[in-house]
């Protein structure tokens, strides 16, 4: 049989198309709907839990930014997988859920053709790296000393030692504090004072042990003020301490390796007084309420900062007390926090509290679209 050119061309083209079709033939991937849905929910819960720990609990990122990032990720996963999702974060102290927050929700249960639920508990904790950092937190912006009353404010301060990586306090056997004030020199004193015998009392130091108040060490001692009568004017004047600086050094000795931390505070010549921040406790667990008071009448503006990186976790204005409920996943992190209160007058007041690690439970509900 003769083969016409057109037949040959069509035949060759069809054979070529068949070969290309065979080469292009790919198996269609079979996906078990229920298993696939659960795998998405399970992996999303793990990833979002890790992101919370790394991007918020142990990073200086603001809570609102992290909340938004998690919501965007959940939205992207929902669109990419074709599933409706609901992502809920819960705080647990190990025995009970104490608070929760919904990060993302586009799940319509009445329309869902099937539902898978995955819960992932994440310890909000990272391993320490053994690098010890330390800090002295003065409980006042400055301390007053008065010649007229012959007294001064107690030198109240907190000392904390914490791991650089996870920001959690390190327990020590003992912490000693040594403060050195600025005082008149004995020769100057003898020249100015009508009663130069006080010059023999000049001792610029104040030393003592700090008390363990829950892996945080509090020092609360008062320097004996030395005054004399000015030989020229007859006024009572300060001999020690003088208005100026006070150098404070805290030392602890774990296993023979001395670690010292020093910081400078200020002394102002004024009548002792003013307000302190009083904390009911210094160590808290998720679900508990941090309670600090400033003054029964005068309100203050409050700021809560994480010591390790300065992250501002909470602000509050015009309040006599700080009530901080540790039940919002985006309102608490583990670590040491410095609480600051600014009143209508006088120095700023500070205190320190510690929040223990907790467990974050990420619950992802994945619903198939009908």
């Amino acid at each position, binding site marked *: 049989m003769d083969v016409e050119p057109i037949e040959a061309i069509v035949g060759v083209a069809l054979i070529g198309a068949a070969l290309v*079709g065979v080469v292009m033939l790919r198996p*269609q991937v079979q996906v078990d709907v229920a298993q696939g849905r659960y795998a998405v929910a399970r992996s999303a819960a793990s990833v979002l839990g890790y992101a919370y720990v790394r991007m918020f609990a142990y990073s200086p990122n603001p809570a609102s930014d992290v909340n938004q990032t998690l919501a965007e*990720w959940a939205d992207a996963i929902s669109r990419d997988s074709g599933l409706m999702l609901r992502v809920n974060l819960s705080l647990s102290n190990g025995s009970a859920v104490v608070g929760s927050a919904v990060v993302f929700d586009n799940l319509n249960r009445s329309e869902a053709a099937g539902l898978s639920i995955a819960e992932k508990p994440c310890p909000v904790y990272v391993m320490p790296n053994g690098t010890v950092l330390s800090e002295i937190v003065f409980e006042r912006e400055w301390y007053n000393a008065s010649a007229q009353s012959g007294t001064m404010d107690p030198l109240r301060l907190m000392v904390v030692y914490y791991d650089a990586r996870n920001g959690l306090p390190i327990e020590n056997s003992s912490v000693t504090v040594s403060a050195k004030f600025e005082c008149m020199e004995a020769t100057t004193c003898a020249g100015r004072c009508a009663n130069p015998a006080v010059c023999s009392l000049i001792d610029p130091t104040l030393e003592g042990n700090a008390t363990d108040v829950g892996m945080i060490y509090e020092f609360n001692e008062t320097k004996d003020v030395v005054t004399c009568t000015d030989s020229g004017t007859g006024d009572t004047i300060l001999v020690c301490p003088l208005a100026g600086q006070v150098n404070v050094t805290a030392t602890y000795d774990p296993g023979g390796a001395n670690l010292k931390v020093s910081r400078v505070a200020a002394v102002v010549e004024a009548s002792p007084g003013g307000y302190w921040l009083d904390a009911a406790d210094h160590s808290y667990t998720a679900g508990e309420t941090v309670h600090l008071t400033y003054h029964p009448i005068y309100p203050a503006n409050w700021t809560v900062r994480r010591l390790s990186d300065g992250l501002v976790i909470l602000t509050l204005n015009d309040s006599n007390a700080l009530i901080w409920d540790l039940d919002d996943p985006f309102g608490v992190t583990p670590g040491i926090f410095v609480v600051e209160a600014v009143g209508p007058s006088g120095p700023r007041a500070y205190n320190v509290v510690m929040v223990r690690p907790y467990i974050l439970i990420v619950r992802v509900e994945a619903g198939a679209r009908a």
Partner: protein
Amino acid sequence: MGTRKAVAFLASLIPVLVFGAFAMSIMQGQAVRNPRAMQETASLVVAQVFEGPGNWNSTEMRVGLALVDEGVNYSIIWPYVVDPVKLERAANMTYGQFKSALPTGGLDVRVSFYRFNESSGEFSRRASLILGSKVTRGFAVGQKVYVYLAGDATVNGNTMGEGLYRAEVTLFGG
């Protein structure tokens, strides 16, 4: 006469084409012979690759990419958080080594990673990395999960940035 022959030839091709197209579509859409068994195998592979840290030092190596946060007394395993060092190591394995370090039951395996683009809010259409077989054949089952790459990884000179990825595990054969 020639025209009639051509028309007859083309007409005779119609049933061949229809039958061929039908056969190919049936073949492509045909379910796997034992889908539940293959699906279970895929789940096992996903669990080992993304939920466990693997065993990289024994003679019977097991591939596991999960990040481990280690301390002195204990460690925390982060499932679906990929350790970039382990990912680089897995990418440098031969296909034979990779396949034998997974519970595939003799099936071929591919693990693909698709990066999440923060600006577009979408996952990339093109895989950033493919572990395992580069070609697919036969019947296939797959499972899709979402993972976080916990640091930059360099594979074949290309850098995979830290971030969110979609990972697809595909088993095929038969």
